[in-house]
């Protein structure tokens, strides 16, 4: 598959073992033409594309199965319920959770974190209790805690990162005190690509009996995850970043914790009996799933997880790592380009600035070359403040990206420098 690559003379290319052309066939959208150029989709950290397997699962659901779940005796309702619950089991297996009671379907990581803030933290924390996060969290793992701070007066502590974008573990450990009631950290930074040593963090916290929430949004598409071996208390991710439908997501929580928590929202499906005097809540996980869920979405998500599991997350991680190294070396050759975030290890995310050019202008010019990247603060404004920049350009790679797309990005950047001066 190295054939046809525009290979600069000086570079020795790795031998690509991964059959990227085979997987690209599963993603018809990658054949899109943008401004007369082939699409180069490098905005996977914002959302990933969906394979035919997922699209067809959604289609099949609506073509053959659509009905409401958990409440009908008729054939379609039973079929929909069975498929939705099978999807839940697929998620359970993907995370290696003990039980499907620990798998709550939600709208996305954002909703999952808000659920934990309101149902886990709010009833049991008091003013002065501390929640420890890091400087590289997505706004979704900052703002729900600030809302909680305004509600009950908890204190938000932020562990610093170094100039490479790595969490400073000693500082993190120092910030764990008697008052720390929850640790909530991302496993992979969406803005910097940093892979955080969550296993170590979880050990630090658990040895002091502090519960831990892991934001796995950017991790699950790239790294195999096992919640039992991690031993975290909560793990959240969004379906759309792992090749599944938007509006789907997962909250994993240890059964005992979920059991002890009050419901997040009230409505249908989350109850076992309702009178005007008293309502008893449904068992786990339904207690947290008020209202009709995104049934097709859950089934589509399961198809996505099955898809990545079939390719193999280890294979994916290895290939993406080679892509990352290659793309990094190609970008580093361009004068005025500075990569923001050089953590080791790192996921296939490259944030960068070009001296004298604004990311927004770079984004427009790359778009004209058919190249989709993200420009801005990536919903991680504190990261931008840490590096004293208003915004970055970010190229994020998935396993369906090719090395020549990194070359296209580099050519586009040279073009941007030429146009903008």
């Amino acid at each position, binding site marked *: 598959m190295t054939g046809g690559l525009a290979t600069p003379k000086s570079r020795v290319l790795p031998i690509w073992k991964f059959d990227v052309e085979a997987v690209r066939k599963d993603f018809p959208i990658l054949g899109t033409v943008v401004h007369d150029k082939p699409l180069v989709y490098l905005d996977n950290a914002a959302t990933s594309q969906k394979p035919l397997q997922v699209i067809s699962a959604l289609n099949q659901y609506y073509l053959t199965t659509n009905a409401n779940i958990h409440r009908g005796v008729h054939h379609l309702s039973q079929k929909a319920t069975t498929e939705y619950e099978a999807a839940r089991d697929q998620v359970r297996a993907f995370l290696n959770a003990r039980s499907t009671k620990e798998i709550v379907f939600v709208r996305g990581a954002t909703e999952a974190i808000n659920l934990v803030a309101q149902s886990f933290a709010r009833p049991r924390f008091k003013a002065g209790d501390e929640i420890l996060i890091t400087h590289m969290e997505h706004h979704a793992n900052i703002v729900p805690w600030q809302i909680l701070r305004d509600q009950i007066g908890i204190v938000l502590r932020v562990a610093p990162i170094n100039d490479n974008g790595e969490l400073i573990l000693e500082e993190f450990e120092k910030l764990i005190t008697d008052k720390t009631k929850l640790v909530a950290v991302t496993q992979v930074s969406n803005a910097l690509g940093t892979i955080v040593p969550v296993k170590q963090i979880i050990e630090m916290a658990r040895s002091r009996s502090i519960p831990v929430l892991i934001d796995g949004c950017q991790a699950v598409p790239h790294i195999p995850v096992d919640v039992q071996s991690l031993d975290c208390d909560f793990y959240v991710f969004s379906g759309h970043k792992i090749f599944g439908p938007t509006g789907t997501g997962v909250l994993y929580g240890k059964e005992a914790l979920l059991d002890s928590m009050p419901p997040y929202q009230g409505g249908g499906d989350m109850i076992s009996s309702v009178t005007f005097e008293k309502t008893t809540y449904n068992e786990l996980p339904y207690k947290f799933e008020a209202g009709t869920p995104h049934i097709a979405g859950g089934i589509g998500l399961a198809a996505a997880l099955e898809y990545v599991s079939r390719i193999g997350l280890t294979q994916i991680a290895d290939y993406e790592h080679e892509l990352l190294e290659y793309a990094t070396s190609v970008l580093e050759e361009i004068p005025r380009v500075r990569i923001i975030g050089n953590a080791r290890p790192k996921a296939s995310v490259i944030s960068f600035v070009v001296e004298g050019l604004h990311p927004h202008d770079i984004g*427009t010019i790359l778009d004209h070359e058919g190249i989709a990247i993200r420009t801005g603060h990536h919903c991680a404004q504190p990261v931008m403040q840490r590096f004293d920049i208003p915004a970055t350009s970010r190229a994020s790679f998935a396993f369906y990206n090719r090395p020549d797309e990194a070359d296209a990005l580099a050519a586009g950047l040279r073009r941007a420098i030429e146009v903008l001066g």
Partner: protein
Amino acid sequence: MSDLRELYQEVILDHNKKPRNCGRLETANRMAEGFNPLCGDRITLYLKMNGDVIEDVSFEGKGCAISTASASLMTSAIKGKTIPEAETLFDSFHGLVTGHDCPVDAVTHIGKLAVFGGVREFPARVKCATLAWHTLKSALEGKIDAVTTE
């Protein structure tokens, strides 16, 4: 490529590299802040009003090429103008960059600002081009809160 050059015309690139009327205006008696949450661009606009006349104007802030050049060219264009004249320019400029029922040729009296005609082909960039103008409007109306383009 041609419409990229339409967007990034020489005049725009020049005003981006060497923005005019850039810096704090010590004699200002009106001020407003503008913010484009999409790209994080911020601008502070200073006006020295003499009755109805914009006697002097400057801006501070760093943004993309389009928003910086727009602030630079706007400040040049409105200096010495009355409030109604500036408002008319605002409307013409808005028509120019959004293209709502408004062929480029129909936008008259706009002088150098016509270099922003290419923006209409880039809907994602309209907010960059109009940030300075929205900030001007809020300064003229004497609003204190930061305006956003959202």
